[in-house]
């Protein structure tokens, strides 16, 4: 009964707030829950631990954000393709999902300042000697569908006139690594962070990290609805605090085993 009453009171409160000009920030605080989308097949940024619970750098950021807001955190598992639909449909308030901040995408969603910078890298079986990106010419290469590194690889392949017959898309990051593990493809493109994490596991002991995608830094931001400017403002300040208060380094250390490189911190401070 008390629960029902409480729900009623909450419902009334929610109703009055909706009628005013409540923005996303108000909504989240009044709801008391942050719906935070993370791509959970992208270790060490997001993955499931051995208890099938969400874990990773991005998940820590969700929890830090929840703490800053003083609300509970509900982590939602997204694929790369789910990120925008989940925002537009209001299932998530924010997506901390390593989203590359392209100008094309910024026409649709709102980006914060960068919160991480990746390099795109090749990983292959140790039998394949891949010294430079050009060595991929006659190899079967894969990547996750709709990622920036897929676009970068395909642009490079097109430029070199390799054609696309040797290229395989995978639905998700995990499928791409499973494909590499099974031998469906000779090499895949992923981020340096994901590759480094995978290489530390027993399953990938016969695999080696290869060259980086030439001349490309993948700068990623947190995304939210484009018109929620005040909310994005808050998120920007949150990111500044993550670095200032040492949370960024803490999360980095927890998931990468070392302190965050000074270079990375500096480039985030410079918002590059």
């Amino acid at each position, binding site marked *: 009964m008390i629960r029902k009453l409480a729900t009623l009171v909450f419902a009334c409160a929610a109703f009055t707030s909706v009628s005013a000009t409540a923005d996303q920030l108000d909504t989240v605080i009044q709801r008391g829950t942050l719906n935070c989308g993370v791509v959970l097949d992208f270790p060490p940024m997001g993955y499931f631990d051995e208890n*099938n619970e969400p874990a990773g750098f991005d998940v820590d950021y969700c929890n830090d954000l929840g703490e800053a807001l003083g609300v509970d955190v509900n982590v939602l*598992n997204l694929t790369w393709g789910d990120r925008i639909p989940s925002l537009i449909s209001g299932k998530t308030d924010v997506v901390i999902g390593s989203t590359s901040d392209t100008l094309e995408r910024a026409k649709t969603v709102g980006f914060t300042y960068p919160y991480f910078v990746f390099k795109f890298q090749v990983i292959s079986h140790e039998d394949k000697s891949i010294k430079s990106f050009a060595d991929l010419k006659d190899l079967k290469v894969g990547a996750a569908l709709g990622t920036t590194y897929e676009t970068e690889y395909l642009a490079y392949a097109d430029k070199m006139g390799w054609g696309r017959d040797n290229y395989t898309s995978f639905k998700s990051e995990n499928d791409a690594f*499973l494909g590499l593990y099974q031998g469906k493809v000779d090499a895949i493109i992923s981020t340096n962070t994901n590759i480094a994490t995978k290489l*530390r596991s027993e399953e990938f002991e016969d695999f080696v990290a290869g060259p980086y995608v030439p001349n490309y830094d993948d700068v990623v931001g947190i995304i939210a609805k484009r018109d929620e400017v005040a909310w994005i403002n808050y998120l920007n300040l949150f990111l500044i605090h993550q670095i200032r208060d040492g949370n960024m380094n803490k999360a980095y250390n927890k998931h990468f085993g070392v302190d965050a490189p000074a270079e990375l911190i500096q480039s985030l401070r410079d918002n590059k």
Partner: protein
Amino acid sequence: MNSLFTPLSWSDSGLILTGVWNTIIISVVAIVVGTVLGLIVGFLRAESNKAVNVLFGSVLDVLRSVPLIIQLILFSTFVGAMGNPLAPFVAGSIVLSLYTMAFMSEVFRSGFESVSPSMQIAARSLGMTKWQTIYHIRLPIGLRAVFPSWLGVSLSVIKDSALVSVIGYMELLRTSEQLISRTQQPLEILIGVGIFYFIISYPLSHYGRYVERKMAI
């Protein structure tokens, strides 16, 4: 640091059971709602004039001519963009129920139309009202005739419910995918999933064919 890959263990059975339960529950919802709506629409289509039929027909046509996976993504994104985000279970249930309705209504329509007009006239001449005729003659005879087809549609709904995973519903196939990512053991897990569907579907489809044979005689 947590380890990335760990083999399948007994502690995963909770997750698998959740997946199994979610598959069952969304299938039951879609079959029940789809059957009720299909019955109504099928009856209206069998009864009504051409104009109404064309209108109904074209809507149902769209539901049957666009892949379920696209309907799921579109509906889930669209209602959200309209400002009414729905949980994956709710959005999935709505789309799957309407999709089921589209097929069920055809099944029921053919059932109602299979009851010959002369039988209805006979019933009326015995003094039955229009509704009595519908209730005592058309419904029971029409429904019995379509039972095998109804079962067939229901079975395909159970199988199609796997697609609701694309909008984030944690049904059996999606939970198994999560486990595959962590264990890198696709074969064992996939075979387990296949056996589950088979155990549900095989006896029912056999029963359907048995009834069909019995009715044919």
